[in-house]
């Protein structure tokens, strides 16, 4: 693969363990591999406990000290991030790799003005100072469509609504012009209409600036409209991956199908078909497929672990039914 085709971010065989109650360790992320093409948009979807947040923290080098990477590589433009020291990672963050987090209420420092918080990374990563800085801050805020940007410079976070704060954190994250931006559940704390506006902003920003976007979310619908590729995680593993159209219109894995079918709106009626049971806990060691206890189609073979299979450049699935062809789509 030439440098031009190399993905901006590539995760290979990532396995992370965490301590469990009672003193042992469990696997939170198991052999996870996926890539985000340069200038592309990929969505990482999974519920709480699927390992998606651990994965994004591992990429950023911000794993809690109790978590341990047992295996794998994370390549940023071919550079293995896991081999880097904390200091090297700290220099990378904001400049080549950046993150927008979930809770806009706590992401900003309440003691500093919006202007100073956006100015800081602009100064640090782009070397702008005094004269040019103000203009750059205003431009930054206008780029994230914050109304009356100039007036915002002197305001404090508590004077802004949740949606506005999320825009500000996005401006801060993009200030250093990173190659890759990870948005970790950026709309979970926002209400429905604000979510729409923010997602549109995110997609437009990506199209303008051409950074590689990894959108982490628990709502498949949301990811489908923003991303080109979708990776579905369950119980610490990747269970399905493909283009947004493939995954959404023709989901192969029973979990993806169930997820899409959970809440459906037809005309003016809402139909619910929840997935029975609960997602596996990190400490739960299952003999085979992690979704098997909840799967309506499970057979005996499912008690052995299925592998991730699929055509090159095509959708991949981790499911015996799909692999062996007996799962009716």
């Amino acid at each position, binding site marked *: 693969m030439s440098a031009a085709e190399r993905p901006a971010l590539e995760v290979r065989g990532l396995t992370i363990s965490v301590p469990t109650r009672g003193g042992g360790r*469990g*696997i939170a992320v198991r052999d996870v591999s996926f890539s985000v093409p340069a200038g592309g948009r990929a969505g990482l979807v999974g519920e709480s406990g699927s390992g998606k947040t651990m994965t994004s923290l591992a990429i950023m080098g911000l794993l809690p000290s109790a978590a341990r990477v047992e295996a794998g590589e994370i390549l940023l433009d071919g550079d293995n991030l896991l081999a880097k020291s904390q200091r090297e990672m700290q220099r990378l963050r904001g400049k080549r790799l950046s993150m927008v987090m979930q809770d806009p209420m706590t992401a900003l420092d309440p003691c500093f003005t919006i202007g100073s918080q956006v100015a800081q990374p602009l100064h640090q990563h782009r070397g702008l100072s005094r004269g040019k800085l103000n203009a750059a801050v205003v431009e930054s805020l206008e780029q994230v469509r914050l109304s009356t940007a100039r007036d915002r410079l002197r305001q404090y976070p508590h004077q802004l609504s949740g949606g506005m704060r999320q825009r500000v954190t996005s401006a801060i994250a993009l200030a250093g012009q990173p190659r890759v931006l990870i948005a970790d559940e950026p709309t979970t704390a926002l209400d429905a209409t604000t979510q729409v506006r923010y997602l549109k902003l995110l997609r437009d920003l990506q199209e303008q600036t051409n950074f590689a976007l990894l959108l982490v979310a628990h709502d498949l619908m949301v990811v489908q409209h923003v991303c080109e590729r979708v990776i579905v995680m369950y119980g610490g593993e990747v269970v399905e991956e493909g283009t947004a159209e493939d995954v959404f219109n023709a989901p192969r894995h029973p979990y993806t199908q169930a997820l899409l079918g959970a809440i459906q709106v037809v005309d003016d009626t809402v139909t619910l078909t*929840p997935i029975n049971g*609960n997602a596996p806990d990190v400490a739960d*060691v299952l003999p085979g497929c992690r979704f098997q206890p*909840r799967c309506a189609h499970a057979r005996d073979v499912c008690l052995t672990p299925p592998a991730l299979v699929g055509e090159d450049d095509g959708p991949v699935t981790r499911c015996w039914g799909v692999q062996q062809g007996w799962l009716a789509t």
Partner: protein
Amino acid sequence: MTANLDTPPTDTADQPPVAKPLVRQRRWQKLRLGRDLSLLVLALFVFAAIFAPLLTPHDPVDNSLMDALKPPMWMAGGSWENILGTDSFGRDVLTRLLYGARVSLIVVVFSLLIAVVIGTSVGVLAGYAGGKTDAILMRLVDIMLALPSLLVALVAAVALGPSMRNLVLILGLLIWPNIARLIRGETMALKNHEFVAYAKAIGAPRWRILLKHVLPNVMPTLLVAATLEVANVILTEASLSFLGAGLPPPAPSWGVMIDDGRALIATGWWISMFAGLAIIVTVLAFNGFGDWLRDRYDPQTRDL
């Protein structure tokens, strides 16, 4: 009883047992050096305090000038008679150390008890009630913190006279403001939790909310705060005893022992040294104990 349409067997008691975790934790990582050592030392401390008379044949206050300034047994001139040597009055150092543990234990326990009861009540009330009550109570705390503690203790001790009871009272009253402030902060943070809002919404009376919802949740902070004050108590007691405002001589207290040997560091270093070590070790042990108590008490960290 209806069928559980939305929860399958995985949710009920007949779940398959959790198999062994995949990654085994190394043996030595399970040992908690700090915690286990603390508990051991504290156990020794309590043991020494309780059984002091049985552990040593000597009397802690009897003078015997003939035996003055004997060095510890491993040095020249020392003997098994006085393992850690004697002080300038011929009193056995080890014996005074053991009896001193008693003094420290009693003083620490009772003065902390007073401080915790007053400090928690004031802190919880101020934090929960807010408004005028909070303002008044906190001004009281501020006043107490602004007073020079040693001076006040001295004056109080002179007025009340030197005794164990007065000492404990004075120390307790000196320490409670620190605890009150911490507890007030915790309470104010807790007020915002939804479970407190819920209890209020369904009509729980204030006393019940404070007792069942606020208090159990400020416990961890309280435990750590109390154990951190132990150092404060022991050292203040030593100072007071030296100034004559604490226990009257010849009572054996570690603080007094340090001061006894203060002028003799060169010739009789053992008099101060062992008492000093005893204080350091005990204070550290109490801190470790506080950590253990807090972890043990919190259901979330209990099994970790």
